[in-house]
């Protein structure tokens, strides 16, 4: 009878954020659904009550069904039979449970059968599912593909696909190919218009496709013959019931073994164009990827939660030298830092999800009516913040998932290396999180503009201007000093970069992570102002920030422009 929502005060805290009122009002458009649908909220309080209840249902399904199945799913894994994916039996049970609980189409409009919940709730549910079984989060979380359809597809397409997703259809995003990984502009899968059949036909191969045999797939394909770059790519939606696609094999992976990673062959598979031709990668996949990155942020935080709990539990049970090992400072320090990073990553996750939500809601409203001047300003403002914060949360959360999983095994000692405890699975599952949906290195590329063009610094200034409790004042003072040092680091890097063009790339990660540390510490200090218990997280995280920034600063200050040559040396070797 475990419940991953009611046992997690931190999650409950984030659900009650003051911005939720604005988000719900935007999302509900003046509660106009209230007499049209028997499950629509009457007002803000009613909506919040429903969120809490549904999050609790989700927490129950995660605790009672998905988590107990995780070990079996990891062991059994999916397989391919007659060109189709057969899920592990535990995965099938999980799917039935989430369908029975009605957890599909969480954010989609009610007219298609969705719950019309804020993104924050979806992120939260994702996080809980990932804590229970990261591999199942991949399958369930892909329902987010429908949001991209909701934004760009025709009303007719929405009525068909969104309704189906709300009824439990699973999704996939078919982007990667053997020669197009991080560089998606190189995608070669062909889509040709058939006059005879009056449909687009897909031909080619996709690789590393998560849940590739899902019911609804968004496929990035080359519609413009003769092109070789991103401008010849469009997005199409493929309905598995129409045939033409086979699963050739599934990968044998290190982790998230329950999630089928497929190689797909399309032979004259009929598909529908989504939105405009040539905008596939430039517009739609970018939107899809941003959403997916937030999804991986949620998955990573869920894994952090699982790793921290496993480690904490073991440290209380295991005795050495006549006492529980948690009594040793070496262990309790590790756990303190794990908790600070867990709560820090979560703070960043929900902050980001609120920015993304407000921006997305204005986008949707702008399709219904023209926005007022002030609304347009706000939309731009939150768009900028979303673009900057999304890669930041993906970067931090996925790296933390790895470090927490690593520490969880360390605390288990030799036992952690054995297959007897869940921490070894968490360690394997975490390893993909800072790789897929854009490696950490690519998140840095996406976030560095936010550092040099001022988005992050402006936001930090906003955090600085908030009210803090007396207990948090010293932390805020230290953060101001840290911010000034980071500004100096940025100036130095920008200065040297003028002469040595790769110098900024060389230090980009150090700059992004320095800024990220300051932001997370501010978020925790703000939380500690509202709820005193967060004080120790804020204090512990400040120390991590100070240590990190001191290291980054020393590295940057000791690097000259000529060092670009030093890091290029390996290019000539081998």
């Amino acid at each position, binding site marked *: 009878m475990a419940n991953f929502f009611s046992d997690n005060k931190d999650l409950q805290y984030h659900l009650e954020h003051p911005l939720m009122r604005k988000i719900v009002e935007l999302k509900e458009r003046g509660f106009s659904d209230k007499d049209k649908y*028997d499950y629509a909220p009457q007002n803000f309080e*009613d909506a919040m*009550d*429903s969120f809490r*209840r*549904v999050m609790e*249902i989700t927490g129950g399904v995660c605790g009672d069904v998905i988590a107990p199945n995780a070990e079996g799913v990891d062991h059994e894994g999916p397989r391919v039979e007659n060109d189709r994916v057969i899920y592990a039996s535990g995965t099938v049970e999980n799917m039935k*449970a989430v369908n029975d609980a009605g957890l599909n189409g969480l954010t989609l409009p009610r007219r298609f059968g969705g*719950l019309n919940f804020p993104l924050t709730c979806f992120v939260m549910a994702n996080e809980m599912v990932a804590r229970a079984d990261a591999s199942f989060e991949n399958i369930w979380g892909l329902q987010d593909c429908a949001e991209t359809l909701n934004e760009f597809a025709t009303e007719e397409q929405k009525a068909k696909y969104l309704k189906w997703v709300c009824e439990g259809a699973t999704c996939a995003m078919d982007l990667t190919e053997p020669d197009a990984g991080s560089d998606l502009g190189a995608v070669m899968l062909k889509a040709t218009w058939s006059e005879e059949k009056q449909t687009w036909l897909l031909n080619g191969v996709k690789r590393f496709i998560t849940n590739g045999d899902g019911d609804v797939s968004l496929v990035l394909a080359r519609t413009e013959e003769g092109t070789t770059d991103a401008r010849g790519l469009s997005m199409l939606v493929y309905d598995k019931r129409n045939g033409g696609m086979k699963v050739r094999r599934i990968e044998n992976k290190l982790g998230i073994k329950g999630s089928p990673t497929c190689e797909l062959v399309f032979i004259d598979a009929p598909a529908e164009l989504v939105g405009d031709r040539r905008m596939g990668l430039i517009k739609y996949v970018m939107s899809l990827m941003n959403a997916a990155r937030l999804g991986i942020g949620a998955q990573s935080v869920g894994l952090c939660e699982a790793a921290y709990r496993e480690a904490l539990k073991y440290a209380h049970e295991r*005795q050495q030298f006549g006492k529980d090992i948690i009594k040793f400072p070496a262990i309790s320090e590790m756990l303190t830092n794990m908790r600070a990073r867990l709560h820090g990553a979560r703070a960043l996750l929900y902050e980001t999800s609120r920015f993304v939500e407000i921006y997305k809601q204005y986008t949707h409203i702008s399709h219904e009516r023209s926005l007022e001047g002030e609304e347009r300003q706000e939309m731009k403002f939150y768009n900028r913040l979303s673009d900057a914060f999304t890669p930041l949360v993906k970067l931090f959360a996925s790296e933390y998932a790895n470090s927490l999983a690593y520490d969880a095994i360390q605390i288990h000692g030799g036992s952690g290396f054995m297959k007897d405890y869940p921490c070894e699975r968490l360690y394997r599952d975490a390893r993909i999180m800072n790789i897929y949906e854009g490696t950490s290195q690519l998140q840095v590329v996406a976030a560095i503009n936010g550092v040099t063009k001022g988005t992050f610094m402006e936001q930090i200034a906003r955090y600085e201007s908030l009210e803090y409790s007396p207990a948090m004042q010293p932390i805020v003072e230290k953060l101001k000093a840290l911010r000034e040092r980071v500004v100096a680091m940025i100036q130095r890097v920008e200065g040297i970069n003028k002469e040595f063009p790769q110098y900024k790339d060389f230090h980009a990660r150090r700059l992004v992570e320095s800024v990220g540390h300051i932001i997370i510490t501010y978020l925790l200090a703000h939380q500690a102002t509202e709820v005193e218990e967060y004080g120790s997280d804020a204090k512990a995280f400040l120390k991590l920030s100070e240590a990190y920034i001191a290291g980054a600063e020393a590295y940057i200050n000791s690097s000259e422009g000529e060092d670009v040559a030093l890091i290029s040396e390996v290019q000539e070797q081998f």
Partner: protein
Amino acid sequence: MNKGLKIVVLATQVPDTRNVGKDAMTAEGTVNRAALPAIFNPEDLNALELALRLKEECAGSTVHILTMGPQRAADIIRDAMYRGADGGYLLTDRKFAGSDTLATSYALSCALRKIGADVIVAGRQAIDGDTAQVGPQVAEKLGLPQVTYAEEVLQVKESSLVIRRRLERGVEVVETPMPAVVTVNASAAEVRPQNARLVMKYKYAMIPSEVAANAGSLAAKMVAERDYLKIAEITAADIECDEQQLGLLGSPTKVKKIENVVFQAKEAKCLNSSDEHINELMVELIASHTLG
């Protein structure tokens, strides 16, 4: 195929005796109800699931909960509605207080005569009494056939059900005409989770006395506007019954004495009830993989 069945699930709210902590018993050796949360009796949830599957099998069927208890027992009716039941009846009256299984089954059978049902489904037994008597007694009082220890309905025919029973030495498949009473084992399918859309639809469902207590609230307004939010409340006066057979008056069962059983062991390890000793024991049991 059947045109749709009227299915009534007999359910009861019980103290949660499964997660027993050190405060579960009072010093006098009785159940400490304050320390144990009130829950949906576990086997009644299996019964609900069986009923819901039967409903899915026969289009046009309905599932209603019938429970006897104080006002707060309306909680389990709402819980069942969140999982797919159409509504429920709360049988509540001071006159029912102190009922043993005989008086309970009498009151339930009188209510059932009034409600009417094609299939009456109940959990095998409740975890607070473990008698497994109420279901069979209801069948006797109504003069209906009964199938006990049911695990699954294998087939629904025009006017009968084919049911698999789980017995001590194996399984048995039986066919019963309808109407019938079916009592369900814990080995039957587990209940489905609450459904998000149904929770939002039914969360304001109330019995009239709850509506009265919440007069002026949004919930009360919603109940007034939407009929599906009205949970029926039935009192002794609403059913045709002999008051002598209700509650304490109608209950021949008398508790004579309650004893704590003390186990004897040769090589005993002495642990007292202090938190420290209990924790030590837990650590030992987990380390030896006896627990967890």
